[in-house]
């Protein structure tokens, strides 16, 4: 599935929730179900800087696609991580770089999160994008 198709799928899923409480309940469920980060990646170096809650980040390039392994102490943030991984993990670096993540606004994540809280979210998105750009450059130079 393309990044856009997955985003549309998520937007559709969130449509059934008519209040924030149900959205949070769903994020909590997603957060609980997200597998923990591989313990060898749970290092001080892999902590995302500037996040209020400890959040570990790792990515790898495999067969021309980027795979993310992210974890957080907060279950709600883990729920958001699950969504980001679903949208971007396993996609080509170029597609990740060019992705417009409009689902974040559409499902109400931005309006439900204060600026300090969205900091965590955007730090993750930035990291995902910048790693994709790095992999793209790597792929282009090795061609």
């Amino acid at each position, binding site marked *: 599935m393309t990044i856009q198709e997955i985003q549309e799928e998520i937007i559709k899923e969130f449509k059934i929730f008519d209040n*924030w*409480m149900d959205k*949070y*309940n769903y994020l*909590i469920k997603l957060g609980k179900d997200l597998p923990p980060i591989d313990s060898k990646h749970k290092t001080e170096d892999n902590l995302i800087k500037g996040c*209020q*809650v*400890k959040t570990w980040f790792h990515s790898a390039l495999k067969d021309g696609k980027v795979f993310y392994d992210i974890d957080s*102490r*907060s*279950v*709600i*943030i883990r729920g958001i991580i699950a969504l980001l991984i679903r949208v971007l993990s396993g996609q080509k670096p170029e597609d990740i770089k060019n992705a417009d993540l409009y689902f974040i606004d559409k499902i109400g994540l931005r309006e*439900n999160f*204060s600026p300090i*809280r969205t900091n965590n979210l955007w730090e993750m998105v930035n990291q995902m994008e910048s790693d994709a750009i790095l992999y793209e450059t790597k792929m282009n130079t090795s061609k």
Partner: protein
Amino acid sequence: MYETKNTHKISALNVTKIRNDFPVLNQEVYGKALIYFDNAATTQKPRVVIDIINKLYSEHNSNVHRGVHYLSEQITKMYESARKKVQDYLNARYNHEIIFTSGATDSINIVAYSFGEAYVKKNDEIIISEMEHHSNIVPWQMMCKRKGAKLKVISINNKGELLLDEYKKIINSRTKLVAIVHVSNSLGTINPVKEIVAIAHKNNIPVLIDGAQAIQHGSIDVQDIDCDFYVFSGHKIYGPTGVGVLYGKERWLQEMPPYQGGGDMIERVRFERTTYDELPFKFEAGTPNYIGVIGVGAALDYLTGIGLDNIKNYEKKLLDYGTAKLTALNELKLYGTAENKTCIFSFLLNNIHPYDVGMLLDKMSIAVRTGHHCTQPLWEHYKIEGSIRASLAFYNTLEEIDSLYEALKKIQKMFK
């Protein structure tokens, strides 16, 4: 000048009436009445404080201590009358022992710098405690680094009380100053400052008390405590932000060199040599936040009008009710269970991350703080990263505590 005293004395504190004095409280967030439980971070401002700031800028603005003209004289009088109000509030011996700063942090930095310059040498020691706010740790670390001195730390027990026996052991002939928090911002513990000062004074060592979380909960008498320095912030005592107070005993303030140079702190400036003005101006370089200072004066008037004992008694009621209510929740762990404490509830709920609890409470229109509350070393004692902190003020109600209780129960259900 302006009448800023509260007229409704509250023998049995009339919280409904009081709440009407605080415009911020009168609003809804996410469609529900705001419950403001983040008073240790900052307190809300009564109408008298807001009005006086507006009035001063609209009708009286002029720089203090400078002009011979009408406006300047008038505002200088108001500024100096605020100093008198702070003096009375703290029961300081002299007017000039009250220095206006930008906040408690600024006040501590002034002492750390000026006291350090005057008295601290290599291998000397400064004593602080495990429960200090970062602003009563970092300035001393900086000073110790500059001077080659060492920081000594008094530990706490699991209830969140200072181990005074340990304090007596670490105090010695190399100790130059003891800097201790009066009330812990994270736990609510009220420290026995009078005893702490007496122990230090037996050894001729001065004591600084960080009163940022104490000043708003009852009367403070610096002569009775006999501390050498006492600091607090205006915004935590229902006054404006950007103003603080440094009380210092005359002797120390006389001997200590000024912290900053500039206008208003000089007697005479020559390129060869400048002589400094008298106290308190020696420590008030530049144009002070005079509007803020007068605002703090108005806040003090408001509080004394309500009656500090009334506030203390009412807050005790909130503390007892809240403690009973919250500890009735299964799997809620309260941190800070000292015998003598203010109305602060620091806790963890089940194994839910404080951030998640804070985020959900916010959506239920309850404002709390989550995280380390600028006391990271304290949480190392408990081997946790931080807590959820509900800090109450005299405008909070028992019903609001009930709402917190119900909200926490709801959150527990969501995470089951």
